[in-house]
């Protein structure tokens, strides 16, 4: 089933960590397997924010040597960062196996991502000026607490609570997906894509990489490919309505925008609240009401609809 949510503060910042935690918590019944957040803060001094993991959560309870391996893998990532010419400004351990780095790097991002992910167990969750992508196993309360997200202030965010149906219960298959190699682009999705393998093969032939077997990743890579060819976000999303097959509603966020798209069958839900200062979207109104306790006017976007808002 899965639940997706998004918020954007137009012209200001807000407590998006707390808002997204509350919205995803209220949709726990749509899927408690994993929870993910893509939070957008203000860019700082041109530094890139790098979120990556070097193991799955379940790996940490397997074998006697895993902690040593994690240490070795992280050291190898650090070595490769130096080799690529990246400077680590600050490094934090989000968990035993996931890390948050602030780095300075001006080189090719695709080469950067490919080289870092070549380290065993390493996966870049996000790379961007404002994007912080966090995802892990468990419900919103657990993941938000684990990564200390409640105090996060920013302009916009998307999130996902997952019920695994067609791929594994692991971080690799959790949403959101970073639209590799584009900085600051992330996607969450509710639905099923029926031309996943066809689309994936075509994009792999064009040089894109997939880290999971989850159909939702196709949307992120598809949009990245379109933008790489020069398409604007909204145009890429409109193309996706025609070219992606299946039933889906998805949200995409960039450094300064939040967008939503709904397939032509309108088979997956989305409720929208829109005011001059704040826009909230979710699979269920109960999620929006968790940040708006008073009565508000909401509505369902229609079939084939694409909308984009700026922060």
């Amino acid at each position, binding site marked *: 089933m899965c639940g997706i949510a998004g918020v954007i503060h137009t012209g200001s910042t807000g407590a998006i960590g707390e808002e997204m935690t509350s919205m995803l918590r209220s949709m726990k019944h749509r899927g408690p397997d994993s929870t993910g957040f893509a939070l957008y803060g203000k860019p700082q001094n041109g530094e890139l924010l790098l979120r990556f993991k070097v193991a799955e959560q379940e790996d940490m309870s397997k074998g006697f040597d895993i902690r040593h391996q994690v240490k070795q893998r992280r050291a190898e990532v650090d070595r490769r960062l130096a080799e690529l010419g990246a400077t680590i400004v600050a490094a934090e351990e989000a968990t035993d196996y996931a890390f948050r780095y602030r780095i300075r790097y001006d080189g090719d991002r695709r080469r950067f991502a490919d080289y870092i992910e070549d380290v065993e167990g390493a996966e870049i969750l996000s790379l961007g000026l404002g994007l912080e992508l966090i995802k892990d196993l468990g419900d919103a309360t657990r993941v938000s607490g684990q990564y200390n997200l409640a105090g996060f202030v920013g302009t916009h965010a998307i999130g996902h609570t997952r019920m695994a149906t067609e791929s594994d219960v692991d971080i690799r298959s959790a949403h959101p997906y970073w639209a590799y190699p584009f900085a600051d682009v992330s996607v969450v999705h509710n639905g099923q894509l029926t031309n996943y393998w066809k689309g994936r093969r075509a994009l792999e032939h064009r040089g894109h990489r997939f880290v999971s077997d989850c159909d939702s990743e196709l949307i992120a890579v598809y949009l990245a490919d379109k933008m790489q060819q020069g398409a604007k976000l909204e145009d890429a999303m409109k193309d996706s309505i025609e070219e992606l097959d299946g039933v889906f509603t998805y949200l995409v966020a960039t450094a300064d925008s939040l967008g939503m798209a709904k397939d*032509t069958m*309108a088979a997956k839900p989305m*409720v929208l609240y829109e005011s001059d200062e704040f826009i909230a979207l979710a699979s269920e*109104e*109960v999620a929006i009401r968790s940040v708006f306790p008073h*009565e508000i*006017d909401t509505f*369902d976007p229609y*079939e084939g609809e694409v909308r984009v808002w700026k922060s």
Partner: protein
Amino acid sequence: MAIRPKAFDLGMHTEQLSGRSQQRFFSPEESERFVYPDAFTVDFAKRAEFDAENMSPQEINLRLRELMSQGVGSIVIRNPGAKHSVAVGILNRLNLEIDGSLGYFGCGLIDGPNIRIKGRVGWSCAENMMAGTVVIEKNAGSTFGAALRGGDLVCKGDVGARVGIDMKGGTILIGGRAGAFCGFMMQRGRMVILGDAGKNLGDSMYDGTIYVGGKIDDLGVDAVEGEMTERDVQWLERKLKLYGLAAPRGVANMTKIVAGKQLWNYDNLEPAEKKLVL
């Protein structure tokens, strides 16, 4: 949109507007009427209200049952908070006011109550409703009134996709716009959309009637335009007046959609004939 006169020549579109369609099969006045073991006898003069802010959907529904078992016939629920599956399975007369919005599956499987919702409703409101009235003041989500069997289901705002799919009776009134696939496999009853209707309207409908006040994106398979009669106009005027609604371009200018009935006995057609029908 072209009228298909062949359907008229075949004697179709002659359904009589004789009131709520379930009355053909079920009359509450008849002695053999079905009596629900869980129905309550209530007094509309006995009133109660409660705040649902900190209650689960199950607690809200149990509280409703408790009040009805005490004979309370007029109930107000405050702060429903868009919770799911609220006010379901009410099988007796009741005046219920919901002071806010409901989530998914609100007012499903009801038979008899009059419910007014001041806010919005999510997907599948009043699914399988059998009798009574449900009036929503704002918007509604998709699959509104799916498999409706009787009663009046009214949304004064816009509604999502697949309104009244598989409906078997009753009336759905929509004050604004409706999405795609409305009336899919409709079997009986009436649907009134005062605004625009999305694509595939009335796809594979067996029977029943859809009236549209705005423009129609396109008609589904075997849905055809019917002839608006004086009976239609009178019924629409009466029904809309009941709920304070009005057709933007006048009732007489609404479009009537009915089943072409070319798909009846579909399985008896040869492949070449099917292609001609579709």
